[in-house]
């Protein structure tokens, strides 16, 4: 069986189109890490004695971390006011730098100022909102911390996963259908292992590639986070991010927990996508139609406005692989009250993945074994 699995992995990966796709993926991932995770584009601008002082790259990271340390801990309205006041630009500085004072909020300051811009008027002055006004009931439980690295890493990885998903479609859709196209189905199905062990090996090989690839992908981005920003901020709240990626999360969640859930969603999406590809591949008449069908099923849900639908349909939409990979949908659902506690809906991914894997494995194996050679 192990020999068969090795052969099936070889067959799936050793194709020019697959290599080209993987190279493209690596290039895209590199670009995302460079643009989002690496500190190259990071910038901190401060007004120091009427002069604009700009720090970029790694210096900006260190300065941000320094500033955050002063306010680390529970979020309060006083802290927010202090941040806006301390780090705003003076009129004189803005005029000397040809900046527009009435649009101060649009300029880069530091990660905390930018995070709390919902509390500022356009000209940068405090707009009088309390933390409850902006963040609701959970406001007092939110924790300020250095969120930049975590947020950017999750943001970059979520979008890179979309590309990885497309590459997986290319790798996996020929797993069964290629045998029909090449005419090797007749040889395989007349072998003693052709109807049971061979399809089993194909299924195992497919999941080995998809899950290992996803884990490696996550590790690359996580290591880049550690390299460029360190682990600081894992205990900070996801609602307090510079990009606002998870502002809509209606319950307290730290970046460390978010990363854990994100991994659950990514791996769950990988399993469901693999299950889908296996089943379509076994049922399709040829490789091309398998590729097109899987690709359409994977990508089309991205273009549906799920926010227009009732909550149940919106949840179903969020659980589809492509939306699951993007994270935001599922992170915006509140937890479900269950008995005396609450359950995060993201855990639905576990039974869904198990069911998808089981049904797909059973049906694709049966379909291939019963395939009538023409």
């Amino acid at each position: 069986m192990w020999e068969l699995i090795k052969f099936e992995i070889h067959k799936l990966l050793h194709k020019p189109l697959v290599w080209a796709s993987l190279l493209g993926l690596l290039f895209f991932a590199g670009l995302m890490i460079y643009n989002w995770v690496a500190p190259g584009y990071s910038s901190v601008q401060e007004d120091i004695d009427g002069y604009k002082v700009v720090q970029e790259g790694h210096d900006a990271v260190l300065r941000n971390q320094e500033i955050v340390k002063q306010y680390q801990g529970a979020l309060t309205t006083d802290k927010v006011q202090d941040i806006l006041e301390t780090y705003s630009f003076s009129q004189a500085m803005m005029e000397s730098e040809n900046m527009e004072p009435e649009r101060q909020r649009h300029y880069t300051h530091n990660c905390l100022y930018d995070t709390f811009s919902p509390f500022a008027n356009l000209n940068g002055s405090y707009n009088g909102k309390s933390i409850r006004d902006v963040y609701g009931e959970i406001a007092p439980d939110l924790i300020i911390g250095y969120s930049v690295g975590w947020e950017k890493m999750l943001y970059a990885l979520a979008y890179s996963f979309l590309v990885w998903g497309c590459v997986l479609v290319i790798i996996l859709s020929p797993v069964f259908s290629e045998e029909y196209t090449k005419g090797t189905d007749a040889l395989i199905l007349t072998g003693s292992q052709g109807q049971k062990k061979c399809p089993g090996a194909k299924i195992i090989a497919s999941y080995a590639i998809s899950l290992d690839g996803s884990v490696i992908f996550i590790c690359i981005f996580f290591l880049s986070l550690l390299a460029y920003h360190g682990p600081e901020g894992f205990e900070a709240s996801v609602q307090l991010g510079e990009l606002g990626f998870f502002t809509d999360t209606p319950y307290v969640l730290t970046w460390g927990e978010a990363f854990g859930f994100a991994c659950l969603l990514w791996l769950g999406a990988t399993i469901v996508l693999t299950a889908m590809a296996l089943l379509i591949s076994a049922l399709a008449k040829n490789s091309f139609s398998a590729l097109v069908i899987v690709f359409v099923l994977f990508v089309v849900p991205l273009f549906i406005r799920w926010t227009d639908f009732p909550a149940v349909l919106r949840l179903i939409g969020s659980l589809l692989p492509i939306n699951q990979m993007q994270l935001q949908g599922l992170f915006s659902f509140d937890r479900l009250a269950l008995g005396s506690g609450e359950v995060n809906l993201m855990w639905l991914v576990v039974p869904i993945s198990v069911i998808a894997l089981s049904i797909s494995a059973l049906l694709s194996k049966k379909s291939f074994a019963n395939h009538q050679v023409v």
Partner: protein
Amino acid sequence: MELRIENLTKQYGTNLAVNNLSANLSCGVYGLLGANGAGKTTLMRLLCDIQRPTSGSVCYDGQNIREIGEHYRNILGYLPQNFGYYPDFTAYRFLMYMSAIKGLSKGYAKQRSLELLDEVGLLKVKDKKIKTFSGGMKQRLGIAQAMLNNPKVLILDEPTAGLDPKERVRFRNLISTFSRNKIVLLSTHIVSDVEYIAGEILVMKKGQLIHRGKPHEIIHSIDGKVWECTVPANSVSLLSEQYNIGNLRSEGEQTVLRIISDDKPLDTAVPVTPNLEDLYLYYFSEEEQ
């Protein structure tokens, strides 16, 4: 050891590809002769259990092959008409993969693969990719993979297609050596292949077995139906339209025609001893046209 085919039928829509066919096959080499569309490939697929019959059954040693499943495939070797392969695999890797599909141990697979590559004359190119092979080389590789598990039932669909005469002789010798205590069924259009090595010939037409017997027996069935005559060269085209011409040999201004006909075609025609090719043309001339 016996392969029993009982009232086997395969219908595609309104087309009866195999029509209530029955036959018993025991040890030996069987040649399956038939024109394109006679149902040979469908029959072979049914015998390999990669197509489901509309009705009827195939039994190996008294047991339905659909029921014994893996046990039957353990003793089966098959070369399809359109041999599928993986272009970027080397010949050796392909045989190792097929060995894994056939459940052979790694050590035995290595030894057997090298043995068969040598038998079919591909040992020197075992590490070259299949996509670089000629048609004949691919066909030889196909034959090799069919024999990996030393099958008791070997089914070969057009195995000599693309092989040159030297390769065909090699193939015939290989099959003859291999076929001791085995059931070998091979289909071909090249009647000479079947004539030399088949112990029995099955003639298939429109999904049915119309003739079965040893080569010399079935050839005798068209005794008195094969004629030779010498005619002027300029009358050949007219006679070709009227009669089934088996062979044409120019001798200067004259042409010697070999005609297959139930009745004497020309006054100058003389009956000759028929061969298997004549038999093929006798039964399948309409299909070939």
